[in-house]
């Protein structure tokens, strides 16, 4: 009897896509939206939702490369400090060096990428664990930012610069277009390219990835550089939105970004995760914050709720994993 091969497809309790972390999260998000919308009539308005998109773009831009990094089993804690450093250098190079603003923006992006590249070199060449390397540069880049700024802020940018952070394009906040394009590019890169496959292979088994001839070090160098670059871009958007530069900009961003990515179902141990999940995670955190604030929940309580949601989603994820028997 046992010699006859059994039908190989097991009966499932639910279709696979329903059991996915991202889908569960999207469902929870949907329910939360309806509840918060019912509690407050200003919440579920197009204006409010678009405005929330505007506010979350800076974190979202960094969350995309962070998804890549966490999928490889790494981490980048220095992103908040890179935002601060880049913001300062944007103002400094424009005001003090007298760079024309477009050049200053380009310079800022180069600085961000360089800061990320430096992380990548430490991690791939010197084999410093990502946690240690980026904790060191978290301090280093913030220190540089404070040293350069000398606690002075820069304001008074030309009017056109505020377009990025404050205006609408086809009825949607300008920076949200930037984020949408970045999401699509990152999503395709992760899901469809050899680069994306390499990231998953690294996260699941770095040695085997290396032994299979995959460019492990190059891929890591790219994602950390990308992380710095996006932090630089995020700094530009942030400065444009708030019209000023200060050295304490971006403090704590790393935690928001990592919470977003992990809430979106990316495993902190590497190997698992999607851009789609990160996007849902991003929406979830921002809309919860906003919805709770509108409903009259105080700021401290909001953080407690978000922490709870993070723990619950992790629980759900591990339950799902056990079910799949991984």
């Amino acid at each position, binding site marked *: *009897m*046992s*010699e006859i091969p*059994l*039908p*190989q*497809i*097991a*009966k499932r309790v639910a279709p696979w896509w329903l059991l996915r972390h991202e889908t569960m999260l999207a469902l929870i998000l949907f329910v939360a939206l309806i509840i918060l919308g019912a509690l407050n009539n200003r919440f579920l308005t197009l204006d409010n939702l678009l405005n929330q998109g505007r506010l979350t773009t800076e974190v979202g831009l960094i969350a995309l490369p962070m998804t890549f990094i966490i999928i490889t089993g790494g981490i980048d804690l220095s992103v908040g400090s890179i935002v601060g450093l880049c913001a300062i250098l944007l103002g400094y190079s424009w005001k003090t060096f007298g760079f024309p603003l477009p050049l200053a923006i380009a310079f800022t992006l180069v600085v961000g990428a360089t800061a990320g590249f430096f992380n990548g070199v430490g991690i791939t060449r010197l084999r410093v664990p990502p946690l240690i390397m980026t904790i060191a540069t978290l301090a280093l880049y913030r220190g540089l930012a404070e040293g350069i700024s000398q606690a002075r802020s820069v304001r008074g940018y030309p009017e056109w610069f505020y377009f990025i952070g404050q205006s609408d394009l086809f009825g949607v906040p300008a920076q949200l277009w930037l984020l949408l394009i970045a999401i699509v590019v990152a999503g395709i890169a992760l899901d*469809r*390219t*050899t*680069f994306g*496959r*390499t990231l*998953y*292979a690294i996260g*699941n*088994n770095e*040695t*085997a*990835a*290396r*032994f*299979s*001839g*995959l*460019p492990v070090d190059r891929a890591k160098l790219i994602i950390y550089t990308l992380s710095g670059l996006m932090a630089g871009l995020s700094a530009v958007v942030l400065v444009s939105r708030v019209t000023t530069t200060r050295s304490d900009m971006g403090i704590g961003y790393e935690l928001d970004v990592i919470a977003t990515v992990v809430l979106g179902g990316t495993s902190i141990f590497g*190997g698992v995760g999607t851009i789609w999940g990160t996007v849902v995670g991003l929406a979830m955190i921002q809309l919860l914050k906003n919805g709770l604030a509108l409903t009259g929940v105080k700021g401290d309580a909001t953080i407690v709720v978000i922490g709870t949601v993070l723990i619950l989603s992790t629980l759900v994820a591990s339950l799902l994993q056990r079910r799949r*028997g*991984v």
Partner: protein
Amino acid sequence: MANDQALRETAAPPRLSVYNIEKSFPGVNALTGVSFNVAKGEVHALLGENGAGKSTLIKIVSGVFPPDRGEVIVDGKPVNLARPDDARRAGIATIYQELLLFPELTVAENVFMGHAPRAGLGRLDWRAMREKTRHLLAALEIHDLHADRVVGSLSVGNRQRVEILRALSQDARILIMDEPTAALTEYDVTRLFDIVRKLKARGVAVIYISHRLDEIFAIADRVTVLRDGAHIATKRVADTAAAELVQLMVGRKIESLFPKITLPIGGPVLEVKDLERRPLTKRISLTVRAGEIVGLAGLVGSGRSELAQTIFGVTPAEGGEIKIRGQAVYIRSPAQARTLGIAYVPEDRGTQGLVRPMTVRENFSLAALGKVAFGGFIDRAAERKLASDGVKCFAVKTSSLEQIAGKLSGGNQQKIVLGKWLANKPKLLILDEPTRGIDVGAKAEIHRLMGELAAQGLAILMISSELPEVLGMSDRVLVMREGRIVAEFLREDATQETVGAAMMGSHESAEKVA
């Protein structure tokens, strides 16, 4: 079936008997009504191909998961083994292939981890712990292992002894050993057998799992063969022969274990001259030609894998020369080695060869992503085709291309690792222990494949610790010792004795080095 007769053979209630065990996982029936028993002081071997259900059976007996149906009976009393702790209390101890020890702690601490003797107020009684460890060591006549040694500094063989001591310290009356010799040297195997015999004398029932038939004949009293989750036969070892066991196991006759075909040999594919990479690659020179299988023999630690990994660019050479098809190259990374047409099937399938949590499809395309991608974008249809061709060509037993690769049996995993490299159409194939820990059927298949690949003009360098395999498959045999090549034999001159002597480094062979 012979089964029932074997069950009745022992008059007293057997120490352990399992009766009609059934277990199924989603999509697979892992066990379909398996029964067998072990008497006091008996060594009972479990034999079967990978995926036959041995591991499932063991996990049930050691309480890792419960059976769907059936009973486990210890000393005539049914026991409920819901958790590993229940098994421990029933006197069942299991020694897994991966030893579960704490490398930073001492032998005594490891032995008594979790059940250390106490000295009032919950303090540990260190004196008693050491004393008891010494008693256990003495009981097994182990004189070269000290209770205060840190486990991390011990050899694999000694670590295994620590696990055995640990089992005894818990008064285990049933000891399950899962492929205990897989990572042992020959000397350690002999010592392990001594210990197993002593355990027998103490009345411990031993369930012994191994792929190596010679071991079963050396140590076991009875043997139970499983195939596809079903009990096939239980035999007295004295009444059976290797050929019969293989046939029971595989369910068909295996014509020959080493189907060696002699082929015309072409020009040199790999030429290595004075290759250096300290500490274990010292002035190595060798040549592998198209269509030739060169066996690389040597003891564990003689530097064979290190040599392979230097050629493959994992640890780039510090000196010397590598030529691929006449062209001098300097190989800095596996990626570069791959573009040069070198494939390396590593020794450690689980950590170096396979990305276990990824699917069969993703593993198959891993080393050949360039072949199925255009401008960096993976063509999913092409990838699926590559994988399904591989599955067909290598007869990989998998439920689908989307199956998680780590869930397949060892033999099937090895076929994937081999297959993913062949998708690249390499010129040189380096195989590092290609059949370690896989069953006879899969082994024969891999040997057959090696022959076919050589016939297609591939140059093969095969590292193996199994002498019969080296002698059976190779056109030429190189022997490594302490990082150097110390002997070279043509196929007709290579025998168990000559190669073995060169490996060990006895005098006569040293003179043979040209």
